[in-house]
């Protein structure tokens, strides 16, 4: 039924939902606020999980991090489903254009065998690491506390899957299915990849959601993305004329620039909450980043050879400076 309505000004009865008025005052709420704050059940949870009877269905004590209010861990991008998908849809358009540019001009075929081999050897096994990252972020979303913290982890997990798929396409484009087979074999057996695979599997065994967030999103990705996509792809390969590869990984570079702001914001607020939190975060960051750095050395060697140690060392320095801004001194 559609009746003809005169435009009338009528007085709203209230500005926003009660729980948002309590948090932000009596004013209109943003869609990010409406879709994120307090939407996880918090009280009177009915049954304990049959798979973990020592905990509640949502249980903040699954992690060593303690927050008076978990909703303090705001996402500076203010991603809710809509803004998240619109952003990624735009980026996938660019990625699609880049892939077809490389394909239609035969740029992949123009790569020298040597550079193609480097690109394949370094990038293709990383599709498995990205799948590990997907599972880890899914864990954080599933078992973390508070929608404001867990929501972006689901988006992040789907991004990790998307990255694994872009890397698979890159492998197919540069080396067909043989490249994917070889990459998987390397991931499983080659000595260069074992420290990283062990790191990822250790993450999969970790069930403290916040520690996992640190191990995967801060420590590992904080070293892996700049080392692989900036140093190896954008600098090393492009300098030798393989900028086609950089076009195929632009999504990953842009993605890392964007998502690190969120990761840093989460760590910063959690560290500022208490000395105890800061101590735990420092311990985790120190341990996991040291391991991530040594796991990355043999991977970076595949491209930079003897320059790997220096590259990883410099990146670790940059990483130290980055986490210092979030309140963590390594």
């Amino acid at each position: 039924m559609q009746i003809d309505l005169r435009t009338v000004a009528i007085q709203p009865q209230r500005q926003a939902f009660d729980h948002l008025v309590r948090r932000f005052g009596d004013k209109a709420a943003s869609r990010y606020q409406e879709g994120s704050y307090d939407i996880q059940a918090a009280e009177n949870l009915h049954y304990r999980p049959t798979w973990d009877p020592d905990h509640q269905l949502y249980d903040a004590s699954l992690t060593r991090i303690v927050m008076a209010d978990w909703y303090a861990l705001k996402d500076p991008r203010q991603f809710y489903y809509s803004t998240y998908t619109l952003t990624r849809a735009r980026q996938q358009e660019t990625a699609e254009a880049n892939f077809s540019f490389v394909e239609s001009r035969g740029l992949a075929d123009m790569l020298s065998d040597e550079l193609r081999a480097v690109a394949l050897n370094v990038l293709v096994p990383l599709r498995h690491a990205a799948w590990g990252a997907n599972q880890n972020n899914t864990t954080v979303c599933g078992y973390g506390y508070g929608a404001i913290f867990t929501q972006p982890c689901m988006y992040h997990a789907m991004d990790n899957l998307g990255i694994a798929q872009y890397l698979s396409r890159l492998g197919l484009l540069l080396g067909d299915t043989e490249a994917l087979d070889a990459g998987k074999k390397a991931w499983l057996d080659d000595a260069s990849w074992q420290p990283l695979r062990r790191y990822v599997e250790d993450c999969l065994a970790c069930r403290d959601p916040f520690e996992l967030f640190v191990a995967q999103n801060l420590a590992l990705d904080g070293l892996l993305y700049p080392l692989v996509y900036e140093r190896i792809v954008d600098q090393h390969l492009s300098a030798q004329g393989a900028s086609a590869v950089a076009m195929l990984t632009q999504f990953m570079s842009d993605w890392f620039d964007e998502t690190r702001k969120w990761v840093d914001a989460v760590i910063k607020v959690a560290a500022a909450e208490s000395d105890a939190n800061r101590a735990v975060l420092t311990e985790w960051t120190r341990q996991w980043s040291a391991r991530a750095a040594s796991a990355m050395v043999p991977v970076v060697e595949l491209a930079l050879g003897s320059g790997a140690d220096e590259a990883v060392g410099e990146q670790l320095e940059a990483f130290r400076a980055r986490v210092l801004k979030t309140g963590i001194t390594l």
Partner: protein
Amino acid sequence: MDMKVAKKKLGLKDKYKLMTRDLGWEPSYHSKDELYPYMNYEGIKIHDWDKWEDPFRLTMDAYWKYQAEKERKFYAIIDAHAQNNGHLNLTDARYLSALKIFLQAISPGEYAAHRGFARVGREFPGVGPQVACQMQAIDEIRHAQTQIHAMSNYNRYYNGFHAFADQRDRIWYTSVARSFFDDSMSAGPFEFMIAIGFSFEYVLTNLLFVPFMSGAAYNGDMATVTFGFSAQSDEARHMTLGLEVIKFILEQDPDNLPIVQNWIDKWFWRGFRVLGLVSTMMDYMLPKRVMSWREAWDIYGVENGGALFKDLARYGIKPPRGWDDAEKAIDHMSHQFMLGLYQWSFGTAFHSWIPSDADMDWLAGKYPHTFDKYYRPRWKHIKKLADAGTPFKNYGLARLCQTCQLPSVFTEPDDPTLTCHRETVYKGEKYQFCSDGCQHIFENEPEKYIQAWLPMPQLFQDPINGDLGEWMKWVSLLDGKDNGDYAGSEDQKNFEAWRGLATTNQ
């Protein structure tokens, strides 16, 4: 490698395989049991995860693209609806009671499903099912958010929406839906999939969404119609996932059959009780009705459900155990439930009302064997009391079923004059049930259901201590605004005044 590699032509299926399950690997630094620890305790046997057939094939780039298009459209319509006072297009503001129940009880279920699917999306040791579950996990937060956003504008003008987050956790009737989702999430991963993926998404979802969305369309609620339509293609994916899960489990090992049958029995009955809310909405709360609950049941329950269980018979699956009792309840449940809601309407954050004579004639036509015989006389009695200025209110506490948490307002399957009531003594404590179905569910897992949070005993604990006013404060219910009869409510007065402004030249 050759400079010009002749690319192999990959079929869609093979390509999707490379984009998903080929990403996985056999771990060697930790055992599989350590990384996927919840795979065995429910007794389900899976021998080969590779036998999983992908229910849909959607890579992330395609997902982002399609979903973004839907999002753009959805928010464009919602924005226009808010700007143009679309709420004045409603047939009548009493319709909003259905939406208030939806926001307080069902949208939180969407969020719970989001978290539940994230958990199973991690726990299954097969990339195929993991990816499918993760996509449902992200879809479900979409549903929670689009619903909140669609109803946000109603909240600005009408009562009953403002405290949905508080009421999700505290008010008595939302614990029907809350306990349902908590029950599924506290179960193991396989049971969760049968509970939500199969029973809810596949068997019952049409009974919830189709009547709800058509009801919205009939009653001028474009906001709800829009989120319903926008969710439709997501739901189609969720349904194929639910069906694949059950077939996969049953094909893996014959020992899985009795376990799955037991879950189907349980979740059918759990779901059927939650749908009691929908029956009331369809028969009573829509000013302009789409079809009766009975008619919806005949199409979406009997016809569709019948075909489904015929299809599953080849695996040895039988129709759910409570099916016959459900059929016997169909002609009674909406009336029994609305009578209950009316007498406890001082404690609900939505309005109820006495049906008009015209409404009662409609109900008599749709329920020729039950309405005039059992329910019209009761409404007439209630009407008489209301006309005399002494409206009927039941300040006695509702006796809630320990399993489904609905008040015991339902009758014996074979005797509509007798309230159905069951009792079980467990470890020296007495527990009450609304039906054989709920009693049976309890007796299968008593250690789970004795933990249930029951909202009525809470009334006598701190900070309420039996004080109704304190209780209202605690559940964020504004007395005289959110609750009670629609007749004479603020919602009614405002809607009529605003609509008068918009349709006349005053």
